[in-house]
């Protein structure tokens, strides 16, 4: 059995091409999962000193430390509140915009679509700085609405482009059939168009939620330390503390909601759903 793992045997058994593909895959996996594995190890290390690879002592010490810190627990709650509010508000604003792009032909429609790309095309810090000027004027600095707006800007492109392509894939005849049997335009939208576009909308919502969960730069700037979401709190901890384990524990805590969301929506998430969102028609 172990004889077969000899690289030479392996090389000849699978052929040259497969062998190198395997090597590249192995390197990639190491590169991709290595840091994650390291993080998981660190999160459960009670004692760890730098040059060693395996921690000196394992345990749940830092988990209990984090949950005993009141500010860290509130930051988690705050993160969830901001993420949920951001998602809901984006849905209210972006889904109608997406529908209008998909269904109505008006001058400047493509420009309107491209405008959502702009927020992602420039360095975020530049946008945040100029937004800060406006936010000071309208007293949005250090407030929840301010942070929610920043998070919305972050994910607007996904929230408009993905549902828009999903709406476009709903055939007009299917909407017309609903009107024909007696449904008004609003009922048609909620009973026929929306459910049929749900995969695209679900993926976009997921992006928005997860994007909001991990956004730190803008939150730090606009929240002015008053709004402490998890990523913001994490910056503080990593900079202050000598124990890298806290960062690792926090990172795992941040991943949990993403993993749950991706698991719930797994049937909607696929390369086609995502690629479909970027068609410019």
């Amino acid at each position, binding site marked *: 059995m172990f004889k077969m793992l000899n690289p030479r045997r392996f090389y000849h058994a699978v052929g040259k091409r497969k062998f190198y593909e395997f090597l590249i895959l192995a390197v990639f996996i190491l590169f991709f999962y290595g840091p994650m594995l390291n993080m998981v190890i660190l999160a459960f290390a009670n004692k760890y000193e730098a040059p060693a690879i395996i921690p000196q002592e394992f345990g749940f010490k830092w988990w209990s430390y984090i949950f005993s810190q009141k500010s860290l627990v509130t930051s988690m709650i705050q993160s969830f509140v901001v993420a949920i509010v951001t998602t809901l508000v984006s849905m209210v604003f972006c889904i109608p915009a997406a529908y209008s792009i998909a269904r109505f032909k008006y001058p400047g429609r493509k420009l309107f679509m491209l405008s959502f790309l702009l927020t992602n095309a420039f360095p975020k810090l530049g946008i945040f700085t100029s937004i800060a000027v406006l936010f000071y004027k309208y007293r949005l600095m250090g407030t929840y609405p301010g942070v929610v707006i920043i998070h919305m800007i972050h994910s607007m492109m996904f929230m408009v482009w993905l549902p828009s392509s999903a709406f476009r894939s709903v*055939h007009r*005849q*299917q909407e*017309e*059939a*609903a*009107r*024909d*049997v*007696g*449904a*008004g*335009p609003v*009922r048609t939208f909620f*009973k*026929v168009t929306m*459910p*049929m576009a*749900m995969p695209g909308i679900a993926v976009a919502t997921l992006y928005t939620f997860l994007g909001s969960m991990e956004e730190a730069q803008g939150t730090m700037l606009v929240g002015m330390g008053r709004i402490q979401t998890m990523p913001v709190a994490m910056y503080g901890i990593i900079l202050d503390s000598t124990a890298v384990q806290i960062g690792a524990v926090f990172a795992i805590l941040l991943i949990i909601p993403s993993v749950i969301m991706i698991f719930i929506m797994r049937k909607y998430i696929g390369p086609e759903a995502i690629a479909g969102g970027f068609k410019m028609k």
Partner: protein
Amino acid sequence: MSETNEKKVILDLADLTKKYDNGDGVEHINLKVYEGEIVTLLGPSGCGKSTILRTIGGFLDITDGDILIAGESIAALPPEKRPTAMVFQSYNLWPHMTIYENLAFGLKLRKTPADQMKNMITNMLELVSMGGSEKKYPGQLSGGQQQRIAIARSLLLRPKLLLLDEPFSALDAKIRQQMREELKKIQQDLGITVVFVTHDQEEAMALSHRIVVMNKGKIDQIGTPAEIYDDPKTLHVASFIGEMNFLKKEGKTLAVRPEDITVCEGAGQGDIDATVRTIMLLGHYVVLTVQHNEDVIKCNVTRDLSERLAIGDTVSLKLGKHSLFDAA
């Protein structure tokens, strides 16, 4: 047409005009559809037949004229307020709903009691021979089955007028024929009024009480299938319906069907002489093409006669029932 005159007018298109921004559309359409009748709008693609149907359904605004159903104007109503029901070419059903939910959607909007609704749906599914498919999703059905459900959904709402927009054109030939027969039967059983749109002249002939032949946004001729076939009023109608030979004769065009030509052996026995070009056996009859000056004429002959003819022979033709048109 005289017998339908005493019947109640269900649909009345009064000088209907619909112009698109690019200048296409239909102009001055006048048409009355009587109760219990299947009227087919027939024409090549782009002739405006679907445009008319969509204006009746309420999916297109009209530019001028009026649409009346049972004497009342519906031109200003949105589709959901019109007493019409439409079956589309494809993408009829909502894929996220079961067949039952698809059928119940319109009934629920009309506040039909649950037990009554269940009965109506069961009976309707039986009528379109789709009994027991309530729990299936549209994606699990074939194209023909989906179209049956779509027809059922429209019929359940007891529309004053059923609109069918090339409903069978996405189906293959055999199923299309079967659906045609079933639709005709259902229509007879229920006595509903139907406006049917198709570009398939055979389908129009088989289904309709009356056919409206359209060309370039205008009505060419309205008549029973027999009238349209036997007595085409324009060159377009003559060429669009069935097979037709066109001969140039003294500056006019003579139109005659292959079955109305009698072929005799030898020259000088009929109206014109011609030379045999091809002989094709098509089962119980034979199609002969003959050359007369620059015209090629198709004639249907018996097998008996065809066996006595060879390519290059001279024959004479007697032209039976035919029409004369001015334009070339």
